């Protein structure tokens, strides 16, 4: 079953809708809440996370498979993955400055992007569960797209939320968290959705 196009598609759709990075696996709640002030900001954050997640997944899987596991270095995996993520984000920032000089970065900056539970969580899951490079890459892309979908939906709700009245103590983050909870409830509707099967 593994390897065929349809199986990869079903992995991808499953990862986006059924086990969504934010709503089902609870990874990346930080950038999800911070970067969703407006639809524009959300698009920037979402795309940046997707890009970084894809690249990091692609880079970490071979490192784990061919360097860490054969040498019994599993205990340094987190440090290595963190370094790879930081390195990639630095590289992307450099590239961005070269390509679009003077324009602001589309996200909240490098460190929160690299030290990001969503990115590293997906990478950790990949090296634990996934047996091929292509699958790992698929999970990386799908995880990123799932994050993008989640943050766009959430930013749409939050833009309306600005004008809503709520108790003083709930203004800002708390009501955003409650809203995210309700969105997560919506996403449980996708559970046991059977794709191509």
């Amino acid at each position, binding site marked *: 079953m593994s390897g065929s196009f349809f199986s990869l598609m079903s992995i991808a759709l499953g990862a986006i809708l059924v086990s969504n990075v934010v709503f*089902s*696996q609870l990874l990346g709640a930080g950038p999800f809440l911070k970067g969703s002030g407006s639809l524009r900001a959300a698009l920037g954050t979402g795309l940046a996370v997707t890009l970084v997640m894809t690249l990091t997944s692609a880079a970490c899987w071979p490192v784990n498979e061919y360097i860490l596991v054969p040498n019994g270095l599993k*205990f*340094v995996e987190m*440090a290595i993955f963190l370094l790879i993520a930081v390195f990639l984000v630095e590289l992307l920032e450099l590239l961005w400055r070269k390509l679009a000089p003077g324009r602001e970065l589309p996200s909240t900056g490098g460190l929160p992007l690299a030290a990001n539970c969503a990115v590293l969580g997906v990478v950790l899951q990949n090296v634990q569960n996934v047996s091929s490079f292509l699958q790992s890459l698929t999970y990386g892309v799908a995880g990123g797209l799932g994050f993008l979908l989640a943050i766009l939906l959430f930013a749409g709700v939050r833009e309306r939320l600005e004008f809503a009245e709520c108790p003083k103590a709930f203004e800002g983050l708390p009501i955003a968290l409650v809203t995210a909870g309700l969105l997560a409830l919506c996403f*449980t509707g996708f559970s*046991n959705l059977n794709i191509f099967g």
Partner: protein
Amino acid sequence: MREAEEKKQGELSLSELKKGGEKESVDEKPVLERADIQQETGFLRLTGWLCLLFAVCGLFLGLVNLLTEERIAQHQGERHMGVLEEVLPYGGDYREIRYSGGDSAIEAAYEAEGAGWVFQVSPEDSYSGTLTLMVGVNGDGTVSGVAVTASGETEGLGLRASESEFRAQFTGKSGPVQVEADGGEIAAISGATVTSRAVCAAVTSALNAADGLK
């Protein structure tokens, strides 16, 4: 020469900082910005520093790993034995055996001499592809117990496959096991038919494998 000067300056600022820190409140900025104290360091020195840092961190982690490795492995072993004991109660040692049948869902097989077998099964048709079960089979070809060891299924619904009521239904069953919707006897977890089917498929795989070993 310059280094020494820098160092002196640095020490001075550090002591200033310490003095200042006692008076100042937390929110206020420190006395000196870091850029004032050190100038650009050469490429070689930077590389050297990085290597040293990596080496120290790596050695530290390696040391901790050395100290904890045994205990962690022991815990993992205990957990593994606990699951085996749960699905097929048996006092003695479980012997890992080679499964040479054609079913790719069977990941590992254990023999409890005279009592039966335990199979580690990962059915193909689960959501995430990471559902893993331990299925115990009695010597007479009936199921003795089922346990979920890894579940990448959707939290909430799919995870309930590990609930005892659902799992208890399998005990004593034999032959192909199916959910009620497919004409079998197992009541599926409501809203998690796919997961329930995957568990049934896993149990059926294990029963067939046991048949082959008899």
